[in-house]
């Protein structure tokens, strides 16, 4: 696959490692009363859709950016690539 890095342009996916579902951006509040439950869900419950999926990729052999890819898991078409920090900062925590 080729990933359109927002800063570096097209890069081969071999330069990246994949962490999976971008819901990991939404880390719960550790001091909330239901933290035990919300953290359990955060840690273990992921969607694994056949279709459009938002997922985290790390440019380990490149600039070490964490990216959020929107990828169709059936065709490997990549619909969008964003810097994870931008996604979080803009409040759109996936």
């Amino acid at each position, binding site marked *: *696959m*080729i990933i359109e890095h927002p800063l570096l342009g097209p890069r081969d996916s071999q330069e990246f490692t994949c962490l999976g579902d971008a819901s990991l*951006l939404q880390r719960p509040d550790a*001091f909330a009363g239901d*933290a*035990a439950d919300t953290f359990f869900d955060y840690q273990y419950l992921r969607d694994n859709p056949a279709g459009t999926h938002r997922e*985290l990729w790390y440019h380990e052999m490149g600039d*070490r950016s964490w990216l959020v890819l929107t990828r169709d898991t059936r065709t490997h078409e*990549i619909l969008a690539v964003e810097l994870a920090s931008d996604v979080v900062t803009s409040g759109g925590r996936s």
Partner: protein
Amino acid sequence: MTQVNRLDGGLIDRDTPLDFTFDGRRYGGFAGDTLASALLANGVRLVGRSFKYHRPRGIISAGSEEPNALVELREGARREPNSRATMTELHDGLVARSQNRFPSLGFDLMAVNDRFSAFLGAGFYYKTFMWPKAFWERVYEPLIRQAAGLGALSGDPDPDVYDRGFRHCDLLVIGAGPAGLMAALTAGRAGAEVILVDEDFRAGGRLTMERETVAGINGADWAAEAAAELVSMPNVRVMPRSTAIGVFDHGIYSVLERVADHLPVPREGTPRQILWRVYAKRAILAAGATERLIAFDNNDRPGIMQASAVRGYVNRWAAAPAERIAIFTNNDDGHRTAADLAAAGVEIAAIIDSRPDAPASDVAELFAGAVVSNSSGRRGVGHVTLRLADGGRKHVSCGALAVSGGWNPNVHLTCHHRGRPQWQENIAAFVPGDGVPPGLAVAGAARGIFSTAGALADGRDQALAQLAELGIKVTSATVPEADDTPVKITPLWHVGGTGRAWLDQQNDVTVKDVGLAHQENFRAVEHLKRYTTLGMAGDQGRTSNVLGLAVMAELTGKTIADTGTTIYRPPYTPTPIAAFAGRSVGRNFRPTRLPPSHHWAAEQGAVFVEAGSWMRAQWFPREGEVHWRESVDREVLATRRSVGVCDVSTLGKIDIQGNDAGAFLDLVYSNRFSTLPVGRTRYGLMLREDGMVMDDGTTARLGETHYLMTTTTANAVGVYRHLEFVRQCLRPDMDVQLISATDSWAQFAVAGPNARRVLQAVVDSQHDISNEAFPFMACRAISVCGGVPARLFRISFSGELAYEIAVPARYGDAMIRALMAAGEPHDITPYGTEALGVMRIEKGHVTGNELNGTITAHNLGMAKMVSTKKDSIGAVLAGREALVAEDGLCLVGLQAIDGDHVTAGAHMFAESTPVDAAHDEGYVTSAAWSPHIGASIGLGFIVRGANRHGETVRLMNPLEGRSARARICSPHFIDPEGERLRG
């Protein structure tokens, strides 16, 4: 030996005669020959034995689809089995041998299998090797392994280099036949960056094998001119001997270039093969088509070939497969072979055309509406039996039979993204259907356009369409005039008979096997394939699949379109594993990292060990030491008695800076770092979000906004990735920056009672490192040896008074030499990873053995380090009920009794319980001989361990058939109060 079947003409260089041997016999050929064409020219028909029944087999095709003519090439370490004779360019001195026969090709003992064929049909493995169960591994498997496979590897390391490469282009054209050449010309003339790959060594595809004219000249000449024009264009790269073997996502293509397979030995400095990764904005598949056979009884006899291959050998290589050749066809293409043979002066025994309305022939006797029903002959066809239109029989004598069953487009690469070919009735073949990879267009015969004129026009049109999408303008693109014969075919898949009619000759699958699959209800195409192994050989069934599907369709009463087809996967043609490995073999499998003191350690005669990608000194043997433990025990005792030095540069080092650096560390470590005073170091415990321990290490505060973290050697990469995840994905609001400094600093542990004295000799005098000025866990930027910048940390892994001193990596070699010189009065002893391990076990320090991914801070007895007053990764889930249970695993020390040995991996059982999973109480993680204690000791986890010190347990190691007894104790075997550290 004379080349008995060599004709006049052809595209061979008669001025360059070549010698080669096949099964030890010498033959002659010419430059431009393949091994197959040279064998045919020499009258050799029998070239191998079949996989299962050991039937005599000959050459079937003239291309990469060859299922039968698989031979061993070359000798010694360069011996290569299962090479297709049809793809092997002849070179002088080529040595080739037949396979799968014993003692000889002519007389093969295993041919007895053919007599027992009634018992060896489809699925016989599943039925035969069932009982008794005890025979599965001891009898049947060795038996099957012995019988399986064709050729044999040399068993020696491959002496040649294989490489990988990367190329980019606007348009990749796959195949240099008429469609591919025209596509490449169109795009090349328009200025596009073009790569043209073709598996042949000569451009032209079928044009090299036909008597056709293109633009008024011989087709092969036109192809040569077109290729020459392409080679002359700076924007076009022509790659002969290069096969596109796979299509991957986003326009990435795998191309195997056989750089030196046509040479006896690769030229100095060049690889044998290169596996290219081609990044193409657009691609055109012009892979042509493959002629099918027709199944009839004993249709696998040597000499029975594709009609197109027969005329290819005659036209291109001037090699007649036999003096007298019969032709069996169900379409007009067979008549073309007849015309070409007649033109070359080869005697035609008969034309057998299964169509009652077959066109008349003026070159040979025609049997319209007739079929070939059988063949006979020893080690090759001698006669064929005809079933005539009126039901009568006739024998025709011939040395070869040219069979034309219609053409299959080479759709393979269109299937690599799960594309499904679809049936096209008028050509009776599958053409590319839905799911062709994005960016890939198909042109010419590969999509069922079989005439030369049609292929040329389609090549241009597909190129124009691709160029338009790329925004490349084309002013004019004319197509030369060429032959435009329509396809006329009446499908005939197999001729009914009582014997065995072959479909897949490489895997020995017959029409009867398909019948058996149908009878046993393996009727879906995917079931059919797996039950009979039809199409599962190295050729992926290129000459056989459609026949098998057609037979199944007949049996089920469905159409072929409804029956469907299996699809193809990479690689398109068999590809050596060596090509995938490239240069990543042996020592180069991955990069080797050398610590800064490596060369010094090598001078000392150190024994090295691979630790991940690092080469670390394991111990430093001295003269007279014969056993490794003598060296290790000496290093441990010398360090504890006086002073030792060890290169610890491999530990991960992460530089962390920013206004929020302290808060960031509070989040990633379970304990607090924002309160750490500048100039101090603290042990940190890092958890995964699920509450398990991820890593540990010490982190120093070098300044108000500047920390330096160390990680274990093994986790350096993973911890850095995790920190970047936390920084970018969880807290991009924090002002913090990270950089890996692992390779920037050389770091040495100096440990032992005399450590300070050694360091005082190298640290510049303005830096006071006395116990008062520089206490335990202090850290400071200093200078050494007269101004070399350095960092000093007073931390200890060994349990002794110890420091770690870091200098920029380029000073590492000088630093170890300076330390050794400064330590000479104290008999300083370099120690390796073994002594390091012994001392940390004696001290009860945990490492990767203990932090195995299932261990919590609670298990380590460090539950109090997980602060509940602040948020940190893993803190919430570490508090889960089962993880903090009182009867959980607990880190303990173990000391073997009765002279026994502690073994890592052993499981612990109480004195008198059964040894089974239900009574398993824990396991040993680390073990060492402690010269300090004088016993074998270890660390491990056992339930309720904190309350069991003094208890004896059994250490069971059923894997190695060993057991031992040990006493549970504190994990701190030496200096439990930590007085030495603070001295």
